[in-house]
């Protein structure tokens, strides 16, 4: 057991830190994602270019595809350091983290050559079209249809909860290509040009007031057959790889954001009073802060253990559900704890720019997006503990 970074890992981190110190731009002035204007998107695109220029795009991609060949631990160091440096949001997160690796795994040589370099350089921004209004937890029941017509698929249907759709160049899309077989067996994965005629997007406003997601509508969209990714009707397996990656990858960057939240909360406890007494002196506040600290530590440690396993060569499996389940529920408790500690004024948009109320509301989505907590528990029971399917 050695929880310290190895010399290699330290070297990687130090190099990255120096680079970030020199290259991270000033924060974009007061915005909330989804309500952004074109200037903001350019800001993100510039950062993506900078990463690419500095050799920090696709850190975990194999060297043969232009990446840095970073280990899972290095990849996690990368995500954490970038977050700590308050670098801009990672515009290429879906392309680099999900689409690229999937293309490497199942794409044709031609697809690799066409798409991978443009993902790496940030020229193409990707989104993923998975969920549909009637296919949430039951993703495999998706009904967006693709019908073969000569050298094209003709796609009709609607996707929902699609991040970056309003600005994306391409979409990794799951479509139904065979309605005569079991639902998992008739799905195909397509790479769709978002500028194709018939594609339209509409921002989806959340209870937290912002619009981080979109609805995407496909009306007679023609997709060339060479943009089929993997085998026909084998799209479910392709899609699953992406989901596993998604669950395993998020840890490091969300950890940094929770850490920052804790830091701010502790700072308030040290300076704000209730009824003449510092919050930090209130025994109930003290219990809550300590409990939040414990839970956050456990998230860090669970993440590190999972990373250590990945580093040892184990592929991310259903255990990723533990991390997702843990952090999503932890963040809801943390948000509630903050609202309780900070008290009545925490509900105001004029207090810390409304961030506490925003966090509180936004956190409710955590146990739904990326697979509900119910789905995660089903996965753990059935695929880790080997219990029979419950439905």
């Amino acid at each position, binding site marked *: 057991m050695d929880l310290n970074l190895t010399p290699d890992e330290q070297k990687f981190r130090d190099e990255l830190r120096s680079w970030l110190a020199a290259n991270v731009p000033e924060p974009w002035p007061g915005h909330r994602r989804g309500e952004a204007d074109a200037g903001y998107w350019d800001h993100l695109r510039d950062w993506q270019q900078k990463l690419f220029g500095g050799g920090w795009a696709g850190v975990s991609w194999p060297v043969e595809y232009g990446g840095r060949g970073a280990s899972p631990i290095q990849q996690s160091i990368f995500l954490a350091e970038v977050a700590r440096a308050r670098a801009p949001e990672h515009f290429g997160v879906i392309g680099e983290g999900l689409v690229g690796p999937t293309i490497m795994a199942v794409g044709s040589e031609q697809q690799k050559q066409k798409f991978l370099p443009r993902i790496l350089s940030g020229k193409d921004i990707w989104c993923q079209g998975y969920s549909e209004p009637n296919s949430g937890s039951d993703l495999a029941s998706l009904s967006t249809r693709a019908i073969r017509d000569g050298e094209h698929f003709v796609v009709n249907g609607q996707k929902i909860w699609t991040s970056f759709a309003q600005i994306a160049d391409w979409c990794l899309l799951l479509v139904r290509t065979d309605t005569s077989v079991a639902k998992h067996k008739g799905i195909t994965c397509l790479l769709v040009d978002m500028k194709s005629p018939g594609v339209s997007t509409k921002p989806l406003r959340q209870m937290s007031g912002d619009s981080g997601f979109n609805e995407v509508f496909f009306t007679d969209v023609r997709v060339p057959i060479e943009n089929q990714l993997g085998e026909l009707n084998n799209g479910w397996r392709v899609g699953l790889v992406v989901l596993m990656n998604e669950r395993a990858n998020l840890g490091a960057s969300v950890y940094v954001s929770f850490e920052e939240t804790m830091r701010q909360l502790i700072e308030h406890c040290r300076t704000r009073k209730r009824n003449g007494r510092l919050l930090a002196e209130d025994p109930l506040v003290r219990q809550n802060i300590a409990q939040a600290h414990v839970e956050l530590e456990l998230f860090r440690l669970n993440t590190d253990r999972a990373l250590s396993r990945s580093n040892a060569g184990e592929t991310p499996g259903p255990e990723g559900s533990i991390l997702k389940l843990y952090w999503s529920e932890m963040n809801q408790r943390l948000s509630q704890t903050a609202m*309780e500690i900070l008290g009545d004024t925490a509900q105001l948009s004029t207090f810390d720019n409304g961030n506490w109320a925003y966090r509180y509301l936004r956190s*409710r989505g955590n146990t739904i997006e990326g697979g509900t907590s119910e789905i995660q528990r089903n996965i753990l029971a059935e695929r880790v503990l080997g219990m029979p399917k419950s439905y």
Partner: protein
Amino acid sequence: MYFDLSKPQKLLQQSVRDFCKREIPISRVRALMETDSAMDDSLWMEMAEQGWIGLHLDEQYGGLGLGPVELSVVAEELGRACVPGPWLSTNWAATLLASIGGPVASELLPGVFDGSMRITIAALEEQGSWSFDPAVMETRLSENGKKTVTEAVTVNVLNGRKYLVQHAQQADHLLCVAGVDDELCLLTIPVASDGLRITSTPGIDATRKVYQCDFSNVPIRRDQILARGDEARQALQQSQNVAMVAVCSEMLGILQWLLKTTVEYAKSRKQFDRVIGSFQVVQHMCADLLLLTESARSAVWNAAWALQENLDANRAVAVAKVYVSDAVRKAGNLAVQSHGGIGFTWEHDLHLYYKRAKADEYLFGDATFHRERLAEMILG
């Protein structure tokens, strides 16, 4: 023992429910909450006409002379319909005025009840609490020059800041809780007073507007001092008990809505070729919603009844505020989770109730605050 609404109370309930259905559908709620005031005059006058303002207060002032149970019935329905506007803050302020009595009550209350006079209460401070300890209260009445506050002609001044004052910008008069020497005092202040600045501070719940009120040497005549010391404290506590029954009732209405909406959704939404209400985990979330809602009803009715009978109401009201505040938060979380993605959208009405519930959870002190009050009653 008869632990249910009486026939007349059930009729009142039905009439409020019908009115809300007819006059304040959720589309109107959404339209109103997008306005600066979350109210419109015609709706307010209609509500006044129904007698819902001060319905629990003495007929001598123009109230209906009904009791806290009837107030609770109305509040529950307004909560169930998520009715925007200053109903709660107005009733709190009116209760406080009536409890103090005197010429100001006689002057203002009839207008309050008929909807023509708007009042609210400025009480909470940023680093204060709902216990209003005069020793740490930032908003203070002080003597101007050397004259004492007991001399009739003396003009004193008020300085300080209040937060979360409901509908201050729509009010004609503020009732203000302030410190004077080592005591509390209650003041009535026209919003047009010199030195009073009212700033909008949008809160999590857009159906009720809240403001920051800054007092900078606001001149206060002696006749603006409604009460001080024990008298002020008692009137405030009594009015808070009434208002807490109302806010707990409102949360009960929200709970009813959450339960009904979630169960209906679970019975109709299909995933995996079956309605999600057939999944045991979803069923159990709904069963918990039922338990929370039914228990909240017991707590609310008991508090309203205790207040009506004047039986250790502090305790019964605190029990209700603790239980219902926690219940409505848990229920809101269960409801959002049961709905999945759709329940997290702006388009769905769930967030209106979720946010109002959060504001109500804080209002008059959260569960932790009232647990400590209860501990004081139990353990000393």
